[in-house]
């Protein structure tokens, strides 16, 4: 290297009359950067490729994201990550639909992303192709009966139809009443099976009438369609649970949707912010995604579980005593309300962990924690009629919570607290919903 330096310095002097001090300085700089310098050819080629992907994302966001998601159909965590990105971009990701979904993620006429049929567990590749090919050849399916007569029922079999139902891909045909498809009829078979049987005979009849030279053109070729059965709809939670089973995702909502108000009111921290709450008492809420129970060296059971809310996930562990105390709550799908501390781990001052103090079901929190219901009303809207309406709703929902009212002046940014005297009200959703129907600024719950 010393030789190279001399050569460099001599070259600089003879070529540009650069003095030794300066050229040595330049040589030093070169040496420093040689440590890190990157191959420009590679960076240029890869940046052009990066630019191409960005160009597509900027100009054709739905198509680009659908293309990216299509290569990850079996990777639930990546798909959910990309779905969040779509949400941020303002692109809806819709559940699968036999009339719109393609084999892979695609974009519909409204520019929304449709879930890939191939991402539904239990739906084979042949079934996916049968559904898509027929639709592309002869147009959309106008009804469930229409679809059943047109697709190959050997590939689109009972298992496929169950998967399609659970994923919500047949929602368009009956207003999303998924329970109907899997309703068990008097003959002990599922509705989808009855329709499959019916469709099979229909196809046979048509075939034989075509084949017969003297086709009995007068005779009625149609058998009566088995009607959609009368039964109760699945509730949201059931529906979401099934969606997660077959796709890995909650598609039509989130189980925690029903507890938004409770989580806002009674939890003081969302899961994405837990690590910022060092040495603080935190209350958190969410749904259990997975549980892993193990036995330690001493034969004691412990469990790791993952809690999820709208903002993210948190890994939690319960050992020994805590395990005995809490293990009944640890089950995937359970929605929990947890109090604890984010504190230094025993003996290890650098690692923090969330130490659980108590767990209860999220569905019981309102009952135990709600102390008052608080409504805000605008002074520009308040009149006797509104007061009367509030009063009426309150009287209809008696309970043990206090009722608080605040009158606000949005223009002056001031407010006046009004105290309701002896009115004790309920905290249940029916009451809150009824209040939300009225022309109020906000309806909130309060603890302690």
């Amino acid at each position, binding site marked *: *290297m010393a030789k*190279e330096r001399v*050569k*460099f*310095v*001599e*070259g600089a002097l*003879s*070529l*540009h009359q*650069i003095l030794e001090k*300066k*050229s040595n300085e*330049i040589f030093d*700089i*070169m*040496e420093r*950067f*040689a*440590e*890190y*310098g*990157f*191959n*420009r*050819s*590679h*960076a*240029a*080629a*890869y*940046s*052009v*490729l*990066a*630019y*191409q*992907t*960005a*160009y*597509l*994302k*900027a*100009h*054709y966001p739905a*198509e*680009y*994201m*659908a*293309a*990216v998601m*299509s*290569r990850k159909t079996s990777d639930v965590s990546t798909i959910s*990550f*990309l779905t969040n*990105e779509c949400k941020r971009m303002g692109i809806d990701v819709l559940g699968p639909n036999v009339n719109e979904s393609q084999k*892979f993620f695609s*974009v519909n006429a409204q520019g929304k992303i449709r879930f890939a049929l191939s991402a539904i567990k239990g739906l084979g590749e042949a079934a996916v192709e049968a559904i898509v090919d027929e639709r592309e050849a002869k147009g959309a399916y106008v009804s469930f009966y229409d679809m059943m007569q047109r697709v190959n029922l050997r590939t689109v079999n009972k298992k496929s139809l169950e998967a399609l139902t659970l994923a919500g891909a047949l929602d368009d045909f009956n207003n999303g009443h998924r329970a109907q498809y899997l309703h068990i009829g008097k003959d002990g078979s599922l509705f989808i099976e009855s329709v499959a049987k019916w469709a099979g005979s229909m196809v046979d009849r048509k075939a034989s009438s075509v084949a017969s030279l003297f086709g009995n053109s007068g005779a009625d070729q149609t058998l009566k369609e088995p009607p959609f059965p009368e039964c109760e709809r699945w509730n949201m939670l059931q529906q979401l649970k099934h969606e997660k089973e077959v796709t890995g995702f909650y598609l039509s909502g989130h189980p925690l949707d029903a507890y938004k108000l409770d989580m806002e009111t009674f939890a003081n921290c969302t899961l994405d912010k837990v690590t910022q709450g060092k040495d603080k008492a935190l209350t958190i809420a969410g749904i259990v995604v997975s549980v892993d129970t193990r*036995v330690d*060296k001493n034969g004691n059971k412990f469990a790791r579980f993952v809690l999820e809310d709208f903002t993210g996930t948190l890994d939690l562990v319960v050992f020994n005593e805590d395990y005995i105390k809490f293990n009944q709550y640890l089950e995937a799908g359970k929605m929990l309300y947890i109090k604890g501390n984010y504190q230094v781990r025993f003996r290890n001052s650098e690692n923090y962990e969330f130490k659980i103090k108590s767990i209860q079901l999220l569905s019981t929190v309102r009952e135990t924690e709600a102390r008052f219901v608080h409504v805000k009303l605008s002074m520009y809207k308040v009149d006797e009629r509104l007061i009367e309406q509030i009063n009426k709703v309150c009287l209809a929902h008696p309970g043990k919570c206090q009722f608080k009212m605040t009158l606000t002046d949005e223009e002056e940014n001031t407010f006046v607290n009004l105290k309701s005297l002896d009115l004790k009200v309920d905290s249940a959703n029916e009451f809150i919903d009824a209040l939300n129907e009225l022309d109020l600024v906000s309806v909130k719950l309060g603890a302690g």
Partner: protein
Amino acid sequence: MQFTHLHCHTQFSLLDGASSIPGMLDKAVKDNMEAVAITDHGNMFGVFKFVAEANKRNIKPIVGCEFYLVADRHKKTFTKEAGDNRYHQLFLAKNQTGYQNLAKLCSLGYIQGLYSKYPRIDKELVLQYHEGLIATTCCLGAMVPQTILNEGEEAAEKEFKWWLDLFGEDYYIELQRHHLPEQEKVNEVLVRFAKKYNVKMIASNDSHYIDQNDSDAHDILLCINTGEFLSTPKGDAKGQRFGFPNNEFYFKSTAEMTALFKDLPEAIDNTNEIISKITPPKLKRDILLPHFPIPAAFDNPNDYLRHLTFEGARKRYKELTPEIEERLNFELQIIIQMGFSGYFLIVSDFIRKGKEIGVMIGPGRGSAAGSAVAYCIEITNIDPVKYNLLFERFLNPERVSMPDIDTDFDEDGRQKVIDYVVDKYGKNQVAQIITYGTMAAKSAIKDVARVMEYPIADSTALTKMIPDTPGISLDKAIEGSKELQDILKGSDIRSRIIKQAKVLEGSVRNSGIHASAVIIAPDDITKYIPVAVAKDSDLLVTQFDGKVIEDAGMLKMDFLGLTNLNNIQDALKLIKSNRGVDINIDEIPLDDELTFQLFQRGETIAIFQFESPGMQKYLKELKPTNIEDLIAMNALYRPGPMEYIPSFVKRKHGAEKTEYPHPLLEELLKPTYGIMVYQEQIMLTARIIAGYSLGGADLLRRAMGKRIKRRWLKNG
């Protein structure tokens, strides 16, 4: 007295040999041995490494193989009564021809004779490829000894004569003394044959591990292989497991061997005769370039490459300026002078074919993007003149080395292009590259613990004591852990597990196939290197791995699958079907406002190379406004140069003064605000300031980089 081991298994006798090649050779050096042979079972996996390691130690490497020999290598259906009767057969390569025949036999053993996990050859092949080979009567499992035991001396003599007639002077009686009654019986007959036919005897030991102490570790290795427990008794009956009869199967010292054959000193001495008649083959060679067929109108590949280059240049450049013409001529001159025309033609050919059949191909990868010739013949798709990329960074006329052109394909297209290459050059000229899975520190403990029936939970606890540092060795882990040291000092099962794991650490556990690399040979590949076959591939697989395959003269090319290319391809299809818009992705404007806004907002999830959270943060600060900014960020966002990003950002926004080391460098360093981001800038600095040639500047840059790496290693 000199003695040479001519019958040695290494860790490449998969899960049967426990000797590491360096360890075995070190023992040979200590014992003043002149030469050592490698004779793994059925394969030559370790041969290249063995020769290199032996040369390092000034030991004469003897290349051999202990084959599985059967009556008919094609026969692959057997019954319970008449199973596959495999005999062992040892061959040593006497010279280069012998090596080639050994490789040929070994390859054919796989290609034609593979049954279960055994590559098998037969006498038909031996007749065809015996030239240059030395043969011996081998071990107890070989034809002559087995015939002695099963059919008697007379039949064995007939068998013996077959080999003797074929190999003549190069046939030896091999005597092993592992204290086995059967062996004594066989040896007695063999000695008689030697006298009767005047055939020389050699002493050998069927070495499977280095020291006698290692026999337990070796036994554990056998259990790992067969999935048995160490506690299961050895034997052939039901409920028993395979195992060696005693602990005599090690790399014995000259003294031990001499003592063992005190009554037959000539058997020891004759090993020296074998050594003296062997000229070790040369395995290391310059790259052999495959032959690329050219149209009749051209005399040679050079003319054809020149033709294609200028034909392409007229399409690529609106106007062929003297400057561009000069650059192309310069590049061509170097490519031709270094003899790489054929290589360029081959790559260009399969890339064009790929495009033709609808495969999405990346714009370029690595330093090849710096070649204008590569751009003109469509190997790359970004213009090095426009982007100011240097050819010398790719091919340096002052430093002869193989150019490295790697190509990205979409995941589905990759295989289609490989299929084309196989079809064009022939299945016997194309191969994938083998990889070896070795037992690392943790897996060695896990494996040993299982065989010793140590509870899984406890063995997991034991492996947890080993840090997750990649490449950590057991010795290093023990050095850094008081806990492990204490365990090792004790005498409980954990101490034994760690001790045995230490012996087996680094053993080759299995073989696999390299994910992207393909080699193309100029001719039938088995003429140059041994190959094998693999279950999950239709292609041949080399027996030498990627670390040495180029040293063995094989041209390696990486065919990489890149999902981002599928993303682009799939998106273009969706855009076409949804909106009826046809986009040529290579012709989009590179100054698109909307695209740069996306980068400026750091909304780069799902954007190739720019999607990490750290990158998003820097993009928001930098607010890139042109492709140069992106190239710089791509180069800077790596461990090390990352420290320059804050300065880079500030300088772009004028919050820090942009300074140049010298006014002459202003133009060169302007796009990166005075910071040297690229190797090319370092090279050009040497040229601008001190008049270096670009080739010389590349050498300077490499020297600087190396020096720093060395310093790092010292300090680190």
